[in-house]
């Protein structure tokens, strides 16, 4: 009798250890999967920001790929922060544009809805068009996605 109880005790202890281990492993796995999902979301937002027609260079109403208009960038934030339309597209993220050539220059934020917590940073090089000077410079679009 005592032997059976001892065996059962050991069995349940092992079962408990196994369950704790299993749930910990499952937790790690869920965390990894959610990170992949947030990763996908960050990439999606970066792509949307880089190809947003509102900011793109237009010539005779044709939008040029991989090109942002510096004049549109300048006035984008006040327009984009006044409406919920862009929150549905970008969620909690911060989109800023920098010129890196010929000189480094912060062109400001296009969209800024920050949230405390972790974030992903995605950088994409882009062409910047100055419609006043009719010149192209080189820039970077920084997209920080918060989760």
């Amino acid at each position, binding site marked *: 009798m005592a*032997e*059976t109880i001892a*065996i059962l005790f*050991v*069995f349940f202890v*092992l079962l408990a*250890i*196994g369950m704790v*281990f*299993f749930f910990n*492993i499952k937790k*790690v*796995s869920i965390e*990894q999967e959610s*990170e*992949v999902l947030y*990763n*996908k979301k*960050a*990439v999606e937002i*970066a792509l949307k920001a*880089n190809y947003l027609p509102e900011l793109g260079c237009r010539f005779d109403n044709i939008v040029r790929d*991989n*090109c942002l208009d510096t004049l549109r960038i300048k006035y984008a934030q006040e327009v984009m922060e006044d409406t919920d339309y862009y929150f549905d597209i970008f969620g909690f993220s911060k989109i800023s544009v920098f010129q*890196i*050539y*010929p000189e*480094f220059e912060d062109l400001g934020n296009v969209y800024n809805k920050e949230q405390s917590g972790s974030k*992903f940073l*995605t*950088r*994409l*090089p*882009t*062409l910047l068009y100055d419609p006043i000077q009719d*010149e*192209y*410079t*080189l*820039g*970077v679009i920084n997209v920080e996605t918060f989760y």
Partner: protein
Amino acid sequence: MSKRFTKKGQMEIFGLLIIITLIILGVIFALRFVVMKEPTNIQKSFVQEGIAQNMLDSILDTKPNDCYVSTFSDLLVDCADFYPLGAIYCDNLNSCEYSQREIDKILNNSLRNWSYDYEFILERGSTELLRVQNNNCTMERDAALQPFPGSIEIKFYVCS
């Protein structure tokens, strides 16, 4: 009587051994497939691929500073056509020297700061005319290619 108990005890220990073996196998399996699994970095692979193409396209269309030509592609084509002297001079340097200096400056201020390795190569046929690099891209790399008339090619590799 005691012999019978000993045999029963041995059978139970045998059962426990099977359970422990199964648990150990389960732990090894879990460690192998869950904990030691390489995290999928979609962002990194996408961004690296996007960086190579976007950077090359953007550099080629950018206006060089202190120079009368309107794009870097004009300078690079001139460098390939009139190698090694070049017909265009900017800031007292010929098109090859000037392109080398400015492209190095651009990539240094961007990709190098973001911890990427890269190789920017201008070729005519199989002859290499210009190279700007930060280490060699021997590992997995993303490439962007821009051909021009006259067997001129610009290759840009990004790796990390």
